[in-house]
């Protein structure tokens, strides 16, 4: 197990180094020199080369990667190219907003998707199943920003039930929750349908297995068979889907945060991109990658916790 953890941490670091390398190269690949774009077309060559030097753009790529990682390890994610403030504080202020959105969306997606999927699998071809299938396709295929705008128009503008903009920063917990409702719904809409479909398919497969017949042969109630015996196995592939889904969730939050004016990571990266504020983009994407890698590691652990067969493979891995 210990070696498995070490291996996980090593691959985590490798992914981070790779991500930073891609980020640095992107800065090079984008048309126009970052420094001259920032300073505008009338900047003097001296000013441009001075900025290039201070941003470290005159260094070879590998040195920039090393420098970024070295600084990041010490908690310094760079300097904002426009304001001149350290980026770390800006990014760290945005992180909680995004985490709240992502966490809320996961809770809502599972909280609604799981029971829907179970009901659909209980009676395949029944009313719940048909409705879920119909709604799920609709939910999955509608882009989250479209849902976000529609929700905003109906609930905030028309009905006035929810706030239009912002994340409720500096206000109480309830106000923050209130601001969270619509963005969470917008992000999780597609996921509710997706999880419901996955749970249904996975559960139907499991319900056909011999060990479910055994459980029934010993007179276990339908409820016990479904929720204790079947779901325990059916949930495993759904968890792995969630691991991959974190990336999608963060991608969606870029749009949704922008639309709702939530000061999260997505909105931060989006506005920094428009300003060509590359250090902020780099720092923001870096934090997103860190979140992604860490959640995937957590999902792996949950996976091992759910399935003793995988757990054993980890142990064997450690024994080698």
């Amino acid at each position, binding site marked *: 197990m210990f070696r498995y953890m070490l291996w996980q941490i090593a691959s985590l670091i490798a992914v981070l180094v790779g991500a930073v390398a891609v980020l640095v190269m992107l800065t090079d690949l984008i048309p126009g020199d970052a420094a001259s774009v920032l300073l505008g077309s009338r900047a003097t060559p001296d000013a441009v080369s001075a900025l290039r030097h201070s941003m470290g753009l005159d260094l070879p790529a590998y040195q920039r990667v090393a420098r970024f990682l070295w600084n990041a390890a010490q908690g310094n994610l760079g300097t904002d190219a426009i304001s001149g403030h350290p980026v770390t504080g800006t990014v760290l202020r945005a992180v909680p907003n995004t985490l709240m959105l992502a966490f809320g969306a996961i809770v809502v997606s599972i909280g609604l998707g799981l029971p829907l999927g179970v009901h659909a699998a209980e009676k395949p071809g029944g009313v719940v199943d048909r409705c879920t299938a119909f709604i799920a396709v609709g939910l999955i295929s509608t882009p989250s920003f479209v849902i976000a705008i529609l929700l905003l128009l109906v609930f905030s503008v028309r009905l006035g039930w929810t706030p239009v903009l912002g994340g409720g920063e500096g206000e109480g917990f309830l106000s923050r929750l209130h601001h969270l409702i619509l963005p969470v719904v917008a992000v999780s809409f597609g996921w509710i349908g997706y999880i419901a479909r996955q749970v249904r398919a996975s559960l139907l497969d499991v319900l056909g297995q*011999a060990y479910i017949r055994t459980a029934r042969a010993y007179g276990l109630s339908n409820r016990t068979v479904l929720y204790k015996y079947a779901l325990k196995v059916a949930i495993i592939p759904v968890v792995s889907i969630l691991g991959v889904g974190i990336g999608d969730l963060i991608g969606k939050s870029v749009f949704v945060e922008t639309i709702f004016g939530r000061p999260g990571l997505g909105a931060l990266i989006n506005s920094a991109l428009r300003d060509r504020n590359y250090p902020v983009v780099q720092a923001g994407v870096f934090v997103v990658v860190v979140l992604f890698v860490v959640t995937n590691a957590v999902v792996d652990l949950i996976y091992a916790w759910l*399935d003793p067969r995988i757990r054993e493979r980890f142990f064997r891995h450690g024994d080698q």
Partner: protein
Amino acid sequence: MSSSLKSRDPEPAKTDAQRSALIEVRDLSVSFVDKHGERFSVLRNIDLSLQPKAIMGVVGESGSGKSTLANAMMGLLPKNAVKEKGDIILKGKVVDPIALRGRALAMVFQDPMNALHPVMTIGTQMVDAQRARFPNHLIRELRKRAAEMLTKVGIADPEKRLSCYPHELSGGMRQRVMIAMALLVEPDLLVADEPTTALDATIEAQIAELFRASRDTLDGATLFVSHSLGLVSELCDEVVVLYAGAIVERADVAELFNAPRHPYTRALIACEPRSDDQSDEAMVSIPGGLPDLSSLPAGCVFASRCLHASQICRQIAPPLVTAGQNHLAACWHPQ
């Protein structure tokens, strides 16, 4: 007489065997319906009666309906199966097997690799299996019973095994667990559906021995489905031969193997490979195949493959009639 007290019995006229029967199957017919609505008759007019502590063997080739019979007695028929008619009778009362699962009925399945839940411990599953039978027992007590039963079925270090997952045990060990689970329920009927088919030969012998020994623990009857005649001849008291969903012959085990009356039974016995056979003779097989279960022939179901078939065999189905002491056969020309 006690017969006046039993005036609500479904049928007044009974043979001696039926009077002491623990569990009976009466006139059971089951069909499968495919997705085009076509019906396949998989079991027709099955009558069985099992005595306490008796082991009844059910033999027949693949597709003869023996597993369907086992599942029907457990109320475990697949969704596309239709019970056309018939009753399961326990201690003289018509019962719904679904309501008795885990109480009066328990089952051991063919494939022990998949019959146990892969991500739950043996202990949890053995405790859960007893819940319907002993709803007022504490988990601790049920676990203790499970450990004791594991010892009885020959599993050493039972406490440790209870916290194992199925993938940590061998196939033979898992089947022992399944048998222990069934015995824990103290069922009136233990249904074993080809419990040794998925195991290799040495393990097969051990598991068969376990069924034989289970008679000390089990007061109920056992229905032992198998395609291995050798196993059935060693283990069972009485044997039922199924062909294309119908009983073609039924007799005490010695009678059936010494004096088989139905040509199909004779052919089955001739096909059985003998372990002591040193000759180079080619394996015998019965030419032809099962009739189309969606449109059965008017006469005997075996007529198309039978060497002795005559005009009447092809026109009128032979009834199951007495062919000796406690011996029934459905044949116009019993041998």
